[in-house]
Structures are given as C-alpha cells and as structure tokens.
C-alpha cells in the first residue's frame, strides 16, 4: 500500500489535534495553525487525487486491526480526494478573506475559538467525505452541526444568537431524522459499513421483505440531510443566519458545510441505498420537485430582499435547489451536473459573501442597497470580485456558472420529457431572475462614485489574495472545464 493512502487518517487526526490545541493559543497563532492545516490538507488530498485517479482504483482503509465488517473503515477514491481537496482549498480562502472581519466584530478572547471550530469543521468534512461507515458519518455530522453553530454565534449580537438558535433547531432536527434512518437501516440489515448495507438493501429490495422500514429509512436519511443542507422548504433558516453572521462564517457555512452534507447524501445514494434501488424508490422525484420549486422560490425571495447579505442567502437556497434537481434527474449526467454545481457554488458563494461583507463594512455596516451606493469605488477589489462572481452566478460564458447551466441543460435532454421541461423552465426562469437581482446590485454599487463622503478603503492583502484566487479559479474552470467535467463523470462511474 502506498504511503499516501495514510494521508486521510493523518489529516483527520491532525485536524482534531489542532482544534484542541487552538484553545490554548492566542488568536493570531490559532489563525496560522488553522490556515496551514487547511493548506496542508488541500495539498495532501491533491496528492492522493493524483495517486488514485490515474490508477482508477477505490481503496478501503482499515481504521484499526479488524477487517471488514468488524471495524471502522475509510474509503479512498478519486471523488473523495477531489472533494476533500476542494473543500480544504476553499476553507483556506474563506479563512484568508474572513479574518479581517473576524478581528473587528468578535471579542479578541473569543477569536481563537473561531479557529477551533474551523479545525473541527475541517476534520468533520474530511471524515464525512472519506468515511465508509454510516454511523461514523452520523458522529461527524454532529461535530459539523455543533461547530457551525459555534462559528455563527461567535458574533455576540442579539440577532445572530437568535439566528443561530434557529439554525441549530433545524440542524438538530435534521441530525435526529438521519439518526432514526440509521437505526431503521441497522435494524433491518444488521450492518453499518456501507458496502455491506448496500448488498443487504439490494437483497431486501428484490425480495420485498421489510419494504416499508427500508423506504422509511431512506426517506428519513434523505430528509435529514436535505433539511441540514437547506433544500426548499427548509431553506428559511438561511436568510437570517447568513444575513447576521460574520462573512467568514457565512462563507464557510454556505460554501462548505451544506456541500459536505450533500456530498454525504450522494455517497449514501451510491454506496448505501445503491443507485438502482434509490432511483426505483421514487425519492429522487420528490427531491427533483422540491429542487425545482426551491430554485424559483429562492430567486423570487432574493429579488424581494433589500439587504444584500440576505439576498445572497436566498440565492444560496436557489443554488442548493439546482443540486437537488440534478440528483433528482438521473444517476449519470444528473449527478455529474449536481457535483459540478456543488463545486461551482462552493467556489462562488464564499467569494460573494466575503466581498459583500467587505463592502458593507466599508460603508459603515450598511446592508441595505440604498446605503451601498458607490461601494464599488470605496472598495475596488471587493466590488470587482462581487461583480465577477455575480456574473458566474448568472451564468455568463467563460465562468463556472455557465458550465453548470450548460451541464444541467444537456443532462435535461437525456432525462425523461416529464423532467426535461421543468428543468429547462427552471433554468431559464432562474437565469432571468438571477440577472435581475445581481445586475441591480452591481449597478447600485457602481453608481455615483464616492457617495456619502466615504474615503477609498485600503484593501487588505489577505482579502485581496483570496478574492483574486477565487476569480482565477472560476475563470480557469470556466474556460478549461470540459476535460475536468469528463474526469468528474469518470469518477462518478467508479464512485
């Protein structure tokens, strides 16, 4: 076994260790620990990716001395390596871009705890992505839930606390339903490791035994994860949560944590329920319908919003709708589109939150549009990044957003006509609505230079670096995305 296959174990344990270490470090040192850890994780996961992908293998890694089916396991294949590398890289950028706001808006003695939470989030995301065991997945979902509440309420503000309590209630309901699902599944299969459950589920499904508990388990686990990731109609926590938290926290939450849950759901579909059983059960149709409704409702709510952060939050709800629409469409092209949409959204939304946060901060904490007039001149880099990422959200060619919409369009033509038409309608309507609210914002921030006597702000190097990297990555995958998407499709086949 190649040494690099040990990296996931080392990274998960190292993230847990750094989380615990950060409680005794001062804020600045904790920041360096968290940043370098995320960077290391991005690099090492990329190494795994380049080891695993050309060999086209999927390896199980024993966590302990006991083989299948007695111990815990990790599973390492190209898809897992790709997503954990991407998640870690985005975490680096979120930490870089969000640190200035963290310093300003959070009490100094609490700021190391932000990094405690981000290290825990990284450990949980890596474990969620790599795990081959349903119950391990549940444990790390819990860590994710608790630490995301932590990064939300670190801003000591009445509204933020209220919003994070609401988020916590939603999230805990989701975890509880997921746990019910695991219990049901264990009761009828007697297994916790994913490949074993899949074999047992297939036997049960073909024999028809325990059909109702099996369907219930599948529904509960899907429902739990979709509540946690904010599928319509469970998206209502998003606006308050993202609108009041510090931008770094909103970026991590929308870009990484909800994506981690969706990735785990896709993993469940492939490795636990089995693609055939899942797509025969009809649950995907429900996901499809709610995904399409979520796209429209999210965009309409975003149009009605006067607060820039809440507007981006509602646009997040719409983007999550896209992912579920893709999952609901078909196992091949639909899932590939959904996975690429997850990457796109994870690379776009954090940049939007960070730029919007920088602009509102520069304009004296103004979040309403009329107070943001001219913000593009006060903070040139943030304005530019916001504009570019808005283009990506709308789906202007040469950006990742365009590739996404293109993928959904082609996937729709392969799907059944009953799904093709709603998909195409949702795509076109949401593009128009996206254009409406993003162009409104962009026009607003570039109107009447230097309004209200605001001086031009000095751009922070860390934020500027993060923004530029976000833009470059987006352009790169927007221009050269085709071969990447083909590779992603290959990964889906061996997932």
């Amino acid at each position, binding site marked *: *076994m190649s040494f690099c296959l*040990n990296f996931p*174990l*080392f990274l998960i*344990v190292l993230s*847990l*260790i750094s989380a*615990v*270490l950060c*409680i005794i470090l001062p804020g600045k040192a904790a920041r360096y620990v968290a940043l370098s850890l995320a960077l290391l994780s991005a690099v090492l996961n990329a190494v795994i990716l380049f080891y695993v992908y050309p060999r086209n293998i999927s390896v199980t*890694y*024993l*966590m*302990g*001395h*006991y083989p299948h*089916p*007695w*111990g*815990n396991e990790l599973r390492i294949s190209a898809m897992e390596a790709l997503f954990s590398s991407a998640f870690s890289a985005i975490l680096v950028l979120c930490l870089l871009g969000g640190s200035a706001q963290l310093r*300003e*808006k959070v*009490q100094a003695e*609490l700021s190391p*705890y932000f990094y405690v*939470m981000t290290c*825990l989030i990284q450990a949980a995301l890596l*474990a969620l992505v790599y795990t081959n065991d349903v*119950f*391990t997945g549940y444990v790390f979902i*819990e*860590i994710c839930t*608790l*630490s995301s509440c*932590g990064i939300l*309420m*670190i801003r*000591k*503000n*009445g*509204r933020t*606390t209220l919003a994070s309590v609401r988020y916590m209630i939603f999230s805990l309901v989701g975890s509880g339903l997921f746990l019910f699902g695991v219990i*049901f599944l264990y*009761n*009828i299969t*007697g*297994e916790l490791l994913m490949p074993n459950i899949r074999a047992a589920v297939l036997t049960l499904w073909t024999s028809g035994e325990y059909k*109702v*508990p099996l*369907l*219930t388990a599948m529904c509960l686990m899907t429902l739990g994860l979709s509540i946690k990731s904010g599928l319509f109609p469970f998206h209502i926590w998003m606006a308050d949560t993202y609108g009041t938290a510090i931008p770094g926290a909103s970026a991590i939450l929308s870009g990484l944590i909800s994506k981690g849950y969706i990735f785990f759901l896709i993993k469940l579909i492939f490795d636990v329920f089995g693609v055939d059983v899942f797509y025969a059960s009809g649950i995907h149709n429900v996901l499809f319908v709610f995904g399409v409704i979520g796209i429209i409702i999210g965009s309409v709510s975003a149009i*009605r*919003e*006067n607060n820039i952060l809440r507007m981006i939050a509602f646009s997040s709800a719409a983007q999550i709708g896209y992912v579920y629409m893709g999952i609901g469409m078909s196992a091949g092209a639909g899932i590939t589109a959904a996975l690429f949409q997850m990457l796109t959204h994870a690379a776009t939304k954090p940049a939007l939150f960070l730029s919007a946060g920088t602009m509102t901060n520069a304009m004296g*904490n103004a*979040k309403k*549009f*009329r*107070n943001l007039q001219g913000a593009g001149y006060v903070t040139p880099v943030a304005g530019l990044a916001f504009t570019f990422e808005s283009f990506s959200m709308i789906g202007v060619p040469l950006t990742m957003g365009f590739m996404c919409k293109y993928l959904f369009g082609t996937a729709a033509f392969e799907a059944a006509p009953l799904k093709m038409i709603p998909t195409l309608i949702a795509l076109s309507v949401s593009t128009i609505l996206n254009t409406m609210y993003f162009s*409104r914002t962009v026009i607003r921030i570039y109107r009447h230079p230097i309004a209200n006597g605001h001086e031009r702000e000095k751009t922070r190097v860390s934020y500027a670096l993060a923004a530029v990297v976000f833009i470059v990555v987006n352009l790169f995958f927007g221009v050269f995305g085709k071969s990447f998407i083909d590779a992603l499709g290959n990964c889906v086949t061996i997932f």
Partner: protein
Amino acid sequence: MKKFKEWLRDWDEGTFDFTIDTAAAGNEESTVSESFEKTALTDLENREFRLFSRAFPITAVILASVMIVFLLSAVMRLPAFGSPHTPPAESVTIQRYIENGLSETGAINIVAGVILDYRAFDTLGESHVLFAAAAAVFILMASARRRPESPRDQAILRDDPILRNTTKVLVPIILLFGLYVIFNGHLGPGGGFSGGSIIGGGLIMYEMSYGPTRLQRVLNLKTYKITVLVSLLFYSIAKCYSFFCGANSLHTIFGPGTPGRIFSAGLILPLNMVVGIVVSCTLYGFYALFMREQI
C-alpha cells in the same frame, strides 16, 4: 406601463414595501449591540404575524400526525424487539464481537471492547463532539467581564448546613465511585462515559453547595483547558498510532494482556480514563458556563 416604471424605481431604490423593512435608514445594527433592536411592527408584518400564529398550530399538528402515522407504520413492520432472529442478532459482526471479543481486545466488558477497540474511530469522534459542544457553549456564554452577584446566586449559596454536610459526606463517595466505574470499564459494566458523568455530577454538587471559589483552586479555566487538551491529545495520538499500525498490518505495542487484570486490554483502560476526564469536564463546564458565564 407608468405604474410598472414606478414599481421598478421603488424596487431599485429599495423603498418598495415588499419586505419587513422597518429599521430606520441610518440606524442599522451596530457592531457589538448586545440587545435586540426594538422596531415597531408594520401593518404588513402584523398581518403576516397574525396569519402565521393562526396557521402554525394547525399545520404543525397535521404534519406531526402524518409523521407519527408514517413512523409508527414503519416501526410495526420492523423485526420484533428482542427476538433472536433479527438481522442484527444474526449478523456475523455481532457473533464475532461476542465470541472473539475477549481474546481480541482483552476486555471482559464486550461493550467497552466494541466502542474503544473495534469501533474506536466513532468514539474518537464522539469525544470530540463533547469537546465541540463545550467549546460552543463557551462561545455562547463566556463573557469577559465578571457578572455581578445576583440574588439567585445568593439564594443558591446561602449557608445551608444540611446541604453542606450532606455534600461533605457524599461528594467523596460519588467521586470514588466514578473513578471505580472508569477504572473497571473493561472488566465490568461501566466505562468512561458513565464514570465521567458520575464525576461531573459530583463536581456540580460540590459547587452548588460550596460555591465556585473553593473548587476554582484546582479547577480554573487554565487547568480546565490543559486537562482537556492533554486528554484529547493523548486519545488522538494513541488511536492514530493504533489505526496506522492496523491499516499497514504492523504490530502494535498494545496487546490484549491477561483478561481480568486491571492493567489489561491494551488501550482500553487509558482511553476510558481520557473519555472520563472529557465527559466530566464537559458536564461541569456546561454547569459553570450556564450558571455564572465562566469556568
């Protein structure tokens, strides 16, 4: 057309009353405002709120009933509880845990063998769940400034001889019992989670009757952090070593030993101690943070 243009302008200006937008323009939320903004409810908001408060109970009852029927019908079709022929009871996993658990892990208590050896990765996660919970509560509750003593504190801390004398007798026994449960976790029923909660309960009881100052001589924020840090570090590093050896088929230095002796069962005893420390610290930390906003 003219109306549409007006609407468009209003929307663009952000003055159109689509949303609940009541905060005065200049008075947006301040950076460290610790209280809620008090805003008057608009008519629209009032209407929405009345509608919501009427529709909410009905919807909730309907949804809950649907969910109950759905779940009950699924539970009725599950294998009978306690029957020897359920899929979990017949699975090879359980058989091996029961038949080989003792010889492979060295723990007489099979549960301890399962959670700390066969499925140790889950438990590593669980103990960090506790850590995350304690850290999240710290973020929520901790305040730098000392809270003035409220009448509630004085009511709790009144010099009650019955309470104090009972505590004086009980707390050492509780703590000893907790330690016994932890140290015998691999030999009989018990382990880190149960023993840790007993110790945590003992600490809370002591603080309730004697106040924080006496306990803080040994357990202040600094020692608290260092205890948690050292235990979790030990847990992570020891288990990382053991996972690494297991995955690469290397020999570990931790063998099962002689079952039945106190120093046996490889890593299970030290891990039980670590889990006990983390659980008791978390429970005590919750109490201290919620009572007086600091540890």
